[in-house]
């Protein structure tokens, strides 16, 4: 029965002169921030490996997806597929202390509704 209905629908579309339409997947949001919040702290580099900022960790807390973002950027578009609806994102700054241990900031949070 399903097959017959599918064929009938396809024939109807062909008869109208149209091809089947594939819905466009929703686009991921563009996330931005104005600063890393630590103006006196250098970015880590080959020569600066302590007392420095290493990266950001961006988490879509709605889906659990985690992204590592370079410390020198202020905008990011999550990769991969995204679902329609509300998504909450956490952005954390990762750093390295004076003895080489990792440090993390508290998260900055924003919510985006994907239409």
């Amino acid at each position, binding site marked *: 029965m399903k097959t017959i209905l599918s064929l009938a629908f396809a024939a109807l579309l062909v008869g109208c002169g149209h091809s089947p339409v594939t819905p466009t997947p929703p686009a991921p*949001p563009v996330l*931005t*921030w104005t*600063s890393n919040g630590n103006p006196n702290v250098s970015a880590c580099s080959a020569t600066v490996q302590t007392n420095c900022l290493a990266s950001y960790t961006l988490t879509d807390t709605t889906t659990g997806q985690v992204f590592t973002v370079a410390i020198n950027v202020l905008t990011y578009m999550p990769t991969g597929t995204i679902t329609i609806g509300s998504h909450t994102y956490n952005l954390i700054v990762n750093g390295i202390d004076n003895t080489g241990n990792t440090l993390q900031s508290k998260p*900055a949070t924003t919510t985006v509704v994907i239409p």
Partner: protein
Amino acid sequence: MTKFKLFLLTIAAFAFSSIPMHAQSAVAFTWTNTDTNIAACSSTVTTNCFSGFTLTDTTTNTVLATPSVLGATATSYTWTPAGGLFVGTHTFSLVANAIGATTTTQIVSTPATTSVTNALTSINPPTGFSGKTQ
């Protein structure tokens, strides 16, 4: 030809916070001047005299204080950067400044140096975080 030379200074410094349990906000410098036989410059003594000290952050090549602030009798200085204290290690130099046989003869000692580490102990979160659909 200078009539005298300035000698090495010794300097020490440490970062500190004026508010207990808060992040470091200032560096306190102290030093001793071994060259105590030179008269301090004044309105009446303008040659062959000791004018004071120049403190420089050699990591950033920034002069922090000159003899107008660090006069001949100064033995300490607290530097509180307006934009917050650096994080990491900076090296500072202190030189003694004197005026020689003429008022235009500047004499500078060899620098005394010290390093200060302000360790990173916590990180602030990013600011202005927002998102928009495309």
